[in-house]
């Protein structure tokens, strides 16, 4: 059965700037928002937009991601024709290659795409928090009779030079592309989300693949080539919530922003645009006599006997009596013991913060650092983890890590 559009989701990134969190985990599998992983956003966007066929291109530490995606059932992507498929690199009779760049990852999977004979292919990124209606994007693409469209966000002019920028005319037609230019001619930043006519994409992928000097990258190679040939390229304006969570501080920020949906615009409680996830299956959370919770999100399986303020507890977190959790992102099954103080930080899954330990500190003028504790790390009794620390090994009792 032919598909009008299928999605290819780039999920191969190592996410090196999230190192403590992505040592054994592909970036799209990083937990987010209490019960989600980053990849839930593009997958849920797909299914909410009516796209029922998604190829997920993986190559770095995919085990957790593969297991998480599984048969796609949580996203209603377990379809007889289509559905979600994980696409790792593989060996061919003629040799074998890892994915060299974003374009190469797609190029190596042309036969997957052709199975569905789509008119359009949407290229998605697995490291953004964003609720976006791709159907509206496609409508724009069709209305413009485009061959290529890219979703763009207006960014403040002073920050523009940090982005890949699209220069477009009044009719949204793209005339120029600037990759992190010193002197920006536009403030329309590419979100890295593209719709291609499949015939055009295929043609440029094959051309690019034949070029030994290419980096096989969409931004550096494919888009410049399209511009060179004066293709019909359009910029689609998106003005909803969008966040690249490629750094510890942006990941922390994005988590904090879901605590204030009215302000930030990222509302997980929207019945019309649900974000789906694979559920851990714990009983309801419990707040006991001594527990105090305000301004926070608490997930199934948590036990709260201490204070939780402006924080997110993922499923199965224990906060013991007298412990204080503030401005913190605490991932699943972490235990915060009596008297421990956990502030302005990200604590990964299954960590143990022993009694009276201190992790992070509330930001000051000089130091706004987000402390990070990696998965399964034990921070010993009365140990101290400073606001700029990224802790990947156990911290001994009483030890201080800056």
């Amino acid at each position: 059965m032919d598909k009008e559009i299928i999605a290819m989701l780039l999920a191969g990134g190592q996410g090196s700037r999230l190192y403590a969190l992505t040592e054994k985990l592909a970036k799209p599998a990083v937990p987010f928002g209490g019960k989600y992983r980053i990849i839930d956003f593009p997958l849920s966007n797909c299914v909410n937009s009516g796209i029922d066929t998604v190829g997920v291109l993986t190559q770095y530490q995919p085990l957790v991601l593969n297991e998480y995606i599984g048969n796609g059932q949580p996203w209603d992507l377990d379809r007889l024709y289509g559905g979600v498929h994980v696409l790792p690199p593989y060996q061919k009779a003629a040799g074998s290659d890892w994915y060299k760049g974003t374009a190469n990852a797609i190029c190596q999977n042309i036969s997957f795409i052709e199975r569905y004979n789509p008119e359009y292919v949407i290229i998605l990124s697995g490291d953004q928090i964003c609720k976006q209606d791709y159907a509206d994007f496609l409508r724009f693409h069709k209305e413009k009779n485009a061959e290529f469209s890219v979703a763009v966000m207006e960014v403040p002019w002073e920050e523009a030079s940090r982005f890949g920028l699209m220069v477009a005319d009044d009719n949204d037609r793209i005339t120029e592309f600037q990759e992190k230019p010193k002197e920006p001619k536009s403030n329309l930043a590419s979100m890295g989300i593209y719709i291609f006519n499949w015939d055009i994409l295929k043609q440029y992928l094959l051309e690019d693949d034949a070029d030994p000097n290419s980096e096989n990258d969409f931004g550096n190679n494919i888009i410049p080539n399209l511009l060179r040939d004066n293709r019909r390229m359009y910029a689609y304006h998106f003005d909803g919530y969008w966040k690249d969570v490629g750094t510890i501080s942006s990941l922390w920020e994005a988590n904090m922003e879901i605590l204030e949906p009215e302000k930030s615009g990222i509302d997980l409680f929207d019945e019309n645009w649900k974000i789906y996830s694979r559920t851990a299956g714990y009983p309801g959370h419990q707040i006991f006599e001594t527990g105090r919770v305000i301004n926070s999100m608490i997930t199934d399986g948590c036990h709260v006997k201490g204070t939780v303020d402006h924080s997110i507890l993922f499923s199965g977190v224990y906060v013991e009596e007298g412990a204080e959790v503030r401005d913190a992102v605490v991932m699943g099954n972490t235990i915060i013991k009596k008297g421990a103080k956990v502030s302005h930080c990200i604590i990964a899954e299954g960590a143990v913060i022993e009694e009276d330990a201190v992790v992070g500190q509330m930001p000051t003028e000089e130091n706004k650092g987000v402390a990070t504790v990696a998965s399964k790390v034990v921070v010993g009794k009365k140990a101290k983890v400073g606001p700029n620390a990224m802790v990947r090994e156990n911290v001994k009792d009483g030890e201080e890590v800056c």
Partner: protein
Amino acid sequence: MLDNNMSTLGIIFPNTYDKTMSELTSNRSIASLPFASRYRVIDFMLSNMVNAGISNVSIIVKRNYHSLLDHLGNGREWDLARKKGGLNIVPPFSRDDVQVYNGRVQGLTSILGFLRSQKEEYVVMSDAFYATTMDIQKLVETHVSTNAYMTCVYKRYKLSANALTIPQEKGDPYYSYELDGDRITGMQINPKTEDYLNLAMNITVMKRTDLIQAVSDAYVAGQTHFGRDVIMPKLATERILGYEVTDYVAVIDGVKEYFDENMKLLNEQNADALFGGNRVHTKIRDDNPTRYTDTAFAKNVMAADGCVIEGKVENCILFRGVHIKKGAVVRNCVLMQDTVVGEGAVLEYVITDKNVTVSPNQDLSGTNIFPALVPKGKTV
């Protein structure tokens, strides 16, 4: 096949004792009653069976089973969406002569053909009016090792006020056992004592072939109740053993008992006892985490995902999707799925069924003995 001398199939009767709490079962079975913030009562026994390695479970439904069908779906959440075995929901009739079965014997008669065609050696039968995470595998192992004809589970228990007062003709009979060592030597039907007794849990293990024989015999003799008509007459001739369950058991046999058993879970020891064992599976709803705003105050609360707490809530069980708005005060309540409590409303000792809306500034209160009950979908 893997060497499994104890291959077992499960049968659950979801409607037994429906009538003890007709206020909550007017459009559902007792088995599909929401319990413990996130579950339906049947989730417990169904998960126990699955966790014991049983992958072939029949649910013999009797009435009001639309909500149960909806909850169970194809059994995927319990890993029972299988090619072989899996979940088998038996509707109350399959021919033109519509009739609802009356008692376990008739219910079992309708699946005799199915039972004959299965390969499992043993059968565990159970009702679904209790929540427990007892170990079914150990039960079957005990049954096999003692070489009993039948093993019946009981709980040392004091009958609830509801059980003591409910008229005998209303609803299904309950039983207590008299024991000599392990062996059950006598049974009482609907005993009315206030002392501890050996309350029959109606969980029975026996060989599949023995069950087929016993049910065929009873049906031919025109009998209906498994306890009265099958077990009792065999006590003298067959080795029928009692098996005491010492795990945490929430027995739900009345509205007040339903309320109390929910409330008991606010005690951490009780909640850990119920949930400390094997995982209890239930239907997935895709709720987000529960949000506490800056005006929230919560103490002694068990709440599932998907709630929004803006008001004050104390000693409560909140099911998925409950919304307590600003200024509302909710104490000692059980609020089922998607209950909305309006701003400034005050609730005390109330059970709200699913999709109840409490208007702003509404006061509503029951008592410890008679919790007020708001039926499904109502706005008050």
